């Protein structure tokens, strides 16, 4: 459902419409409707990229539409500048506003983001109304003329609009299928997981916010040239709302759905307004009906039911997939360069010094210091609430310490952002499964593979077109036995498979330091086997710290054990010493001190 259809198909359809519509002699009124549909389709599709892919529903998207339109109105009508100054000025303005506003809006999450985009849209709307000498106030700015005489004909303008739609739809389609788009979809599911894979999550949201704003600005510019005027309606909340309605009516995150939504809403508005004056009532009713009866949009009606475990596409065996791909990445499916040898820092992989972290009055980690040699396997034990997961969060940067330092191979990483720590070589799994529920299994490994070929920000090449990444993903999936599930969305996987994928993802990046947070938690003995096998099969140069309650798993893997209780390090030693340690027994078994 998330995958938009092939571009060639759409191109063909568009050409047929282009040929049918104006040439077949339908009245200008319908051509006029088609032009409006196209303008709104561009607008709604840009919102869908932000809302459906990046998971950032904006209630002020019309602000960008309006900026693109007003720039043309102000430049040509108020300042008598040439049309292209207005056009370029508008797009520059959209970029600038996106740059500034994105910084503010993206400091927030979820509902705050909605509130702030709403306030932002209303701010510009209020400005347009009140700043009358510049914007024409309530009446707006009439008298905009199209750039060339030829465009004064509705039919000719239709061709221009269609061309713009095709170009922008092509760009957006490429954008959402590219590694960039894959990362957007991933971050809308789990930012912390994507961060832990070494992606700079914030920057993705920021870029998406700006790019979609500029595309909305293009739609606004087209609208200004076509209608010959701009008004405060162009950046009003009802404009933003209509775009949202188009997106949800068509199907969020489908890209073609919003196009369909635009066609429907524009048609309804213009046809119904012949009979009813009160478009807002109809619009309002449509909102309610759409939420109640089409929560996944029209595209959702056609979407397949949750995919079963059987692969959906033609039965492509891993061998075929691997054969198709050139052997760019070595057979170990690793980028060996990422695993750095032990030298260079006296063989110390991780050095934690006097680390403190409190939550309110609770001291979760109290003055903890320890170090781990490169290549060492360490188990972190301790009862629930001992501070083990907090310690992992501090090491990976998900939480900031109150005081203390952390060094990775001699380099201080105490102040490094989480994604930078991931790139410095820290891989982790999460205690509570942290995957991207709506991404397929193979897409998870693509995210890892794209990292290895450093194409995280590629925007115009499909994410599945990197031969070496496909080979890497196929290889990794085969090894953990999830190849047959490659096209299942992860939320439909069994818990055991999810845990396996969790570990496989972290391992596939070949981190220098791997942190495993209860990889076997909640698994049956049969399911634990493959995970233990994976851990045993790790490159011996890889440093591993494992938190695990299952003693068999923990002690089988570890060379050294560190025991935690109440946020403090209480014992340290070989598995055998720890097994016999009275203090440890007391913590775990509650036996009184002798």
């Amino acid at each position, binding site marked *: 459902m998330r995958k938009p259809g092939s571009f060639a198909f759409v191109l063909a359809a568009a050409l047929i419409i282009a040929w049918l519509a104006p040439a077949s002699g339908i009245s200008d009124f319908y051509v006029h409707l088609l032009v409006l549909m196209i303008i709104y389709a561009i607008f709604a599709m840009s919102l869908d990229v932000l809302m459906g892919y990046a998971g950032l*529903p904006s*209630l002020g998207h019309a602000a960008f539409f309006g900026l693109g339109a007003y720039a043309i109105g102000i430049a040509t009508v108020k300042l008598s500048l040439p049309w292209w100054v207005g056009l370029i000025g508008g797009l520059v303005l959209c970029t600038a506003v996106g740059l500034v506003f994105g*910084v*503010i809006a993206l*400091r*927030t999450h*979820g*509902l*705050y983001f*909605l*509130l*702030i985009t*709403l*306030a932002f849209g*209303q*701010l510009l709307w*209020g*400005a347009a109304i*009140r700043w009358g000498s510049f914007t024409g106030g309530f009446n707006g700015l009439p008298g905009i003329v199209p750039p060339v005489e030829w465009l004064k004909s509705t039919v000719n303008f239709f061709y221009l609009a269609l061309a713009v739609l095709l170009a922008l739809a092509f760009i957006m389609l490429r954008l959402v299928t590219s590694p960039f788009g894959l990362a957007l979809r991933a971050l809308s599911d789990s930012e912390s997981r994507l961060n832990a894979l070494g992606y700079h999550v914030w920057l993705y949201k920021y870029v998406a916010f700006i790019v979609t704003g500029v595309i909305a600005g293009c739609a606004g510019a087209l609208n200004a040239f076509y209608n010959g005027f701009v008004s405060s309606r162009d950046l*009003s*909340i*009802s404009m933003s*709302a209509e775009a*949202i*309605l188009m997106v*949800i009516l068509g199907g969020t995150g489908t890209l073609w759905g919003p196009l369909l939504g635009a066609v429907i809403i524009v048609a309804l508005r213009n046809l119904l307004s012949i009979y009813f004056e*009160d478009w*807002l*009532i109809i*619009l*309002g*009713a*449509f*909102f*309610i009906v*759409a*939420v109640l009866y089409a*929560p996944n949009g029209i595209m959702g009606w056609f979407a397949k039911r949750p995919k079963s475990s059987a692969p959906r596409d033609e039965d492509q065996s891993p061998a075929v997939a691997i054969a198709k791909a050139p052997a760019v990445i070595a057979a170990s499916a690793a980028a060996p360069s990422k695993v750095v040898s032990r030298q260079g820092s006296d063989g110390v992989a991780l050095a934690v010094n006097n680390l403190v972290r409190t939550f309110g009055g609770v001291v979760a980690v109290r003055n903890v210091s320890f170090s781990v040699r490169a290549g060492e396997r360490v188990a972190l034990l301790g009862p629930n609430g001992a501070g083990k997961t907090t310690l992992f969060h501090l090491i990976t940067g998900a939480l900031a310490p109150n005081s203390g330092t952390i060094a990775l191979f001699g380099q201080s990483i105490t102040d490094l952002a989480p994604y930078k720590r991931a790139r410095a070589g820290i891989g982790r799994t999460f205690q509570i499964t942290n995957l991207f529920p709506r991404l397929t299994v193979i897409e998870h490994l693509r995210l890892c593979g794209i990292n290895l070929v450093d194409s995280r920000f590629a925007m115009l090449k499909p994410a599945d077109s990197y031969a070496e990444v496909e080979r890497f993903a196929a290889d990794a999936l085969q090894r953990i036995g999830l190849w047959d599930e490659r096209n299942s969305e992860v939320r439909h996987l069994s818990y055991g498979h999810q845990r396996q994928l969790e570990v496989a993802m972290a391992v596939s990046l070949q981190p220098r330091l791997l942190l495993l947070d209860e990889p076997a938690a909640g698994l049956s003995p049969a399911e634990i086997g493959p995970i233990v096998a994976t851990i045993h099969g790790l490159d011996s140069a890889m440093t591993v710290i494992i938190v695990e309650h299952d003693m068999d798993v923990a002690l089988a893997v570890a060379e050294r054990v560190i025991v935690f209780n109440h946020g403090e390090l209480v014992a340290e030693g070989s598995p055998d010493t720890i097994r016999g340690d009275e203090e440890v027994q007391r913590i775990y078994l509650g036996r009184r001190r002798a």
Partner: protein
Amino acid sequence: MTIWVTHVLNGLSFGALLFLLSSGFTLAFGLMKIINIAHGSFYMLGAYVSVSIMLATGNFAVAIGAGAFTVLIFAIVLEEVLLRRYHLRDLPQILLTMGVAFIVSRVCLIIWGGDPLVMRTPSWLSGPLIFGDFVFPKYRIFLIVAAAVVGLLLWLVLERSRIGAYVRACVDDEEMAAAMKINTRALFTGMFGFSGLLAGLGGAIGAPYIGAYPGLDFNILPLALVVVIVGGLGSLAGAAVGSVFVGIIDSLGKALFPELSYFTIFVPMIVILAIRPTGLLGRE
């Protein structure tokens, strides 16, 4: 000097109105995580109804009560019929309330027409209050007093009553509250209705000051947003602090930079967001 006192008092009286408007919004958010786009519509509906009732009866108290009560009923129906089934699903709730807001705005236009209506101030509240050379409209003093009383009552109910304890328990952990025999569904419906009541009360009490006119709903909504963003979403004390802050800045802004008056209230919002994204008194 007196001129500045007047500006600050003006700001306080506007802030009083903002508090009535935003306290309901922030309570509904705090408890149910609803961003109610129709909150401005609640306010406008309260204003229109009270203006009409004042015209019909001439009784100020009845007019205010009718405005607030109408919105209370409207909000309860809205919660029961539409919002309840989308509990904790933010986007559907936003879209539903947005749809309702559009419908209300048009229906109000059909019923009350396009001309602005202002309520006649009752005689005992009209005219100025004079203290030496200090002159200030009585009604604005009344606004400040009314908001202070409402704020105090709200605080007492939330902090000192059994219902308030239920509400706070629900805010912290809804499932646990339900497990302790708190009827969370009734609590949600009641609180949403109460949030509507506060907005309707704001619209009604504000009617002699701001009046009722088409577009009031979406004009007033951003003010509520700014207040809760500044004060901290979901926090009653935040709504109070934010209201006073925004009210006074608005009043001083109008006096100092008349052309930019609309922007002056957004500036503190942006500054606060940049420094403290959860607002002055918001929780992480």
